[in-house]
């Protein structure tokens, strides 16, 4: 069985030929490597024109395809609320909400997010018009240095929607039922947001309040 349209091949080969190769020269202790050290012509990747929809506004941007969504938000759109704690998906500080779902914006490319609805911390509320989750964080002192906070808040808002939608978690005891709005569920589900200041206990109080649960 073949799913191929043979006419396509040619096009592909052309693309391949037009691609400039980037010279690698990696850090090495190997003396031999010297021979390949001559500077060579390197090309920049073609910039890509994208339309990003962030917090309800559209932004036309020419981006380097290497740019992550996080860097596009921070460096191009000056939405610096999303933080770069690790750039490796290991901390959650860059959490934003895309089409209603929380993701880490450091591990997705800006070019991949064209056509999606992106909400950042700036889109949730402002100092004079706080989102209930932001107000609850203030009330319960759910932060200290504040660096993880935008990520925690975006994550918490989307997380509650996941519970409401009946999505299970690692600690949901019965998979065939809807999960409960409970502290144990919230703790597990928020574990992708590291707070080195250790505000967890207070963050949980803030989330519980917004969820309408007292623990």
């Amino acid at each position, binding site marked *: 069985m073949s799913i191929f349209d043979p006419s396509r091949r040619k096009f592909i080969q052309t693309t391949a030929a037009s691609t400039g190769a980037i010279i690698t020269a990696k*850090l090495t202790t190997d003396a031999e490597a010297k021979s390949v050290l001559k*500077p060579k012509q390197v*090309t920049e990747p073609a910039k890509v024109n994208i339309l990003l929809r962030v917090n309800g506004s559209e932004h036309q941007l020419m981006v380097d395809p290497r740019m992550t969504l996080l860097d596009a938000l921070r*460096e191009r759109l000056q939405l610096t609320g999303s933080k770069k704690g690790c750039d*490796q998906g290991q901390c959650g500080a860059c959490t934003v909400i895309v089409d209603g779902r929380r993701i880490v914006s450091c591990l997705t490319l800006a070019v991949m997010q064209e056509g999606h609805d992106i909400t950042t911390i700036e889109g949730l509320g402002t100092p004079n018009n706080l989102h209930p989750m932001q107000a609850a964080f203030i009330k319960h002192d759910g932060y200290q240095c504040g660096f993880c906070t935008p990520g925690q808040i975006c994550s918490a808002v989307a997380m509650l929607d996941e519970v409401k939608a009946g999505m299970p978690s690692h600690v949901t005891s019965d998979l065939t039922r809807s999960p409960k709005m409970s502290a144990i569920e919230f703790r*597990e589900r928020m*574990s992708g947001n590291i707070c080195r200041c*250790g505000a967890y*206990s207070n963050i949980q109080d803030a989330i519980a309040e917004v969820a309408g649960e007292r623990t």
Partner: protein
Amino acid sequence: MKFDTPASSNPIDQLKVIGKPASRIDGPLKTTGTAPYAYDRYNVVSNQAYGYVLGSAIAKGRIASMNLAAAKAYPGVIAIVTAENAGKLGKGDFNTALLLGGPEIQHYHQAVAVVVAETFEQARAAAYLIQVEYVRTKGYFDLADEKSKGVAKDDPYTIAESAVGNFSQAFSSAPVQLDASYSTSHESHSMLEPHATIAAWDGDQLTLWTSNQMIAWSVGEISKTLRIAKEKIRVISPYIGGGFGSKLFVRTDALMAALAARAAMRPVKVSLQRALIPNNTTHRSATIQRLRIGATKDGQITAIGHESWSGNLPGGSPEAGAVQTRALYAGANRMTSNRISQLDLPEANAMRAPNEASGLAALEQAMDEMAEKLGMDPVVFRIKNDTQVVPDSPLKAGSTDSQANKNRNPNPPFSLRQLVKCFETGAERFGWHKRNAKPGQVRDGRWLVGMGTASAYRDNVVMKSAARVKLDNRGHLTVETDMTDIGTGSYTIIAQTAAEMMGLPLEKVTVRLGDSSFPASAGSGGQWGGNSSTSGVYAACMKLREAITVKAKAQDPKFDITNAVFADGKIQSKSQSILLADLAGSRGLVAEDAIEFGDLDKRYQQSTFGAHFVEVGVDAATGEIRMRRMLAVCAAGRILNPKTARSQVIGAMTMGVGAALMEGLEVDKRYGFFVNHDLAGYEVPVHADIPHQEVIFLDETDPISSPMKAKGVGELGICGVAAAIANAVYNATGVRVRDYPITLDKLIEKMPTMV
């Protein structure tokens, strides 16, 4: 203002604003993503280029050659700075290793180059094109191997050794003895915000928007490193994404940004990659500790000896695990020793509660083991050996004047010590009596359950701190000090202090921090910041009150200033009152002062105390350890804001959970570096690790500490947590693990077999 006699009653005692659980005044900014951290500041200076730091690929040796050609030719690259072209650099007093390495390399990931480019993507890609050839030389990387070469030497922070009575004789003749060794791991601060700086030159004037705990120190250090006058340097750091000691000093980001900006002739922003943090920046050294405790059969300690070994690069300080053992418990015969060996690992330096956090992890486990040997409840054993004077205080760190040291009271009293009350309160609240002293008895489904306790102890340090206060004609007060808020709540407690002093509501106070153009404060470190900096604000406000009083008198000669009070935005005396706004007039009123501390901290031992109680569950099969309950009872003087102080304590408890159960930088002993150098490899606690935490502050004031009658609280909470957890794990399983972190691999072999 000089503070050299204990505080009497003062305006802070009104407690109208101070002592209230006010929400952080910086909360609306922090929760909306609008608080500007260093790397966020796109709008402070235009035309910022991106710097990317390349770290050394070897731990020790030298760079044989560097080829920058390919990187330089890369599109968008503006400049590359290495040791070769950086110009002559000095070294800051607080740095052990150089911030820019080459040709000599002192540790893994020591910065060897910064690439500046138009975009971050270009700078990063170009950095990978730099070719470096290294020559490795032999280094020392294993503390256990180097321990025997450890030397005891005094430095400004540690008195290496102490002895009282005859320890060895008393120990060997003690009816009940414990001799045990413990170890703690290398730990990474891993604050969530990587070190970051934007640097801009205006002629020979340098401005750094950075993330740093100590503004005035940094100005001095930058000045030394770049060899430019302090007056030419401005450091701005109003928001700091955590530090825990890792941002006490100028680090590579700041130096590299400054050098890069000079070379690129435009502003440059640099943030260290997460993977550089453990090896490029500082960490807490591992320790090996030996505890010997001798006691009578009824539990009176007669001999206590604590030895600690740690490592650092040549010139660095030790992690002095034995220091608190000079003061925590009674006992006529004692010795402490803190030795240091050369390790060619990255630079070790202060991390939250340096010395005590590691020291208590060992001491407080030993106390638990000793209590068991004695057949005593560990709470009772600790209470029995409480002391109201320091049993061993012939010398104190920082006292270079040996004559003064000689004249000191060898057993100074504690200014205030309520350790016993902490334990009594905590035991009651926690339900400690329900603990089964026999280990391995309590089971809840899959979980073996155990309880543990430990003392918390941390010195209260006071430091000179200045502030400026400005009153304007709307009756609004602005406080300016170079104090930093690293999550500690400085903004809020400083506002509360000023509001209390001036009789203003909190909303009428603006606090501006973290700028070297403001008066120099104590900065944030060693849990001295909150108490010292608010005392500095107190001093400045006192001065402003005087100025206002004088003005009130000048405006209305009948105004009776003797009993004047500041309240409701007015200065009031009997039936008279004048609005502060009116007195400030269109030009406003400004006052500046500093608090300077006399020798009260030498006449009295000022310390903070606490008792930790924890309950853990240990999976009977896998040995996984999970926290079930945590309580800390703290005695730390007046609590200026119970909400933010509580946060400091729960945060420290959380870091203690990390130290106890998971945090450990793993050394590759061949290549000499920390292998697990990211946040997936170096595990810190996550939400699921932390149960609801409870904190109780004893209601106390310590007038000997400061006019605020407060003490430090930011580090107390981490002290002792690890031991409390270790003790609970023992209580749950009957397995004693003396090597932190207590991971399941150290437990399962000794746990009952599974059927």
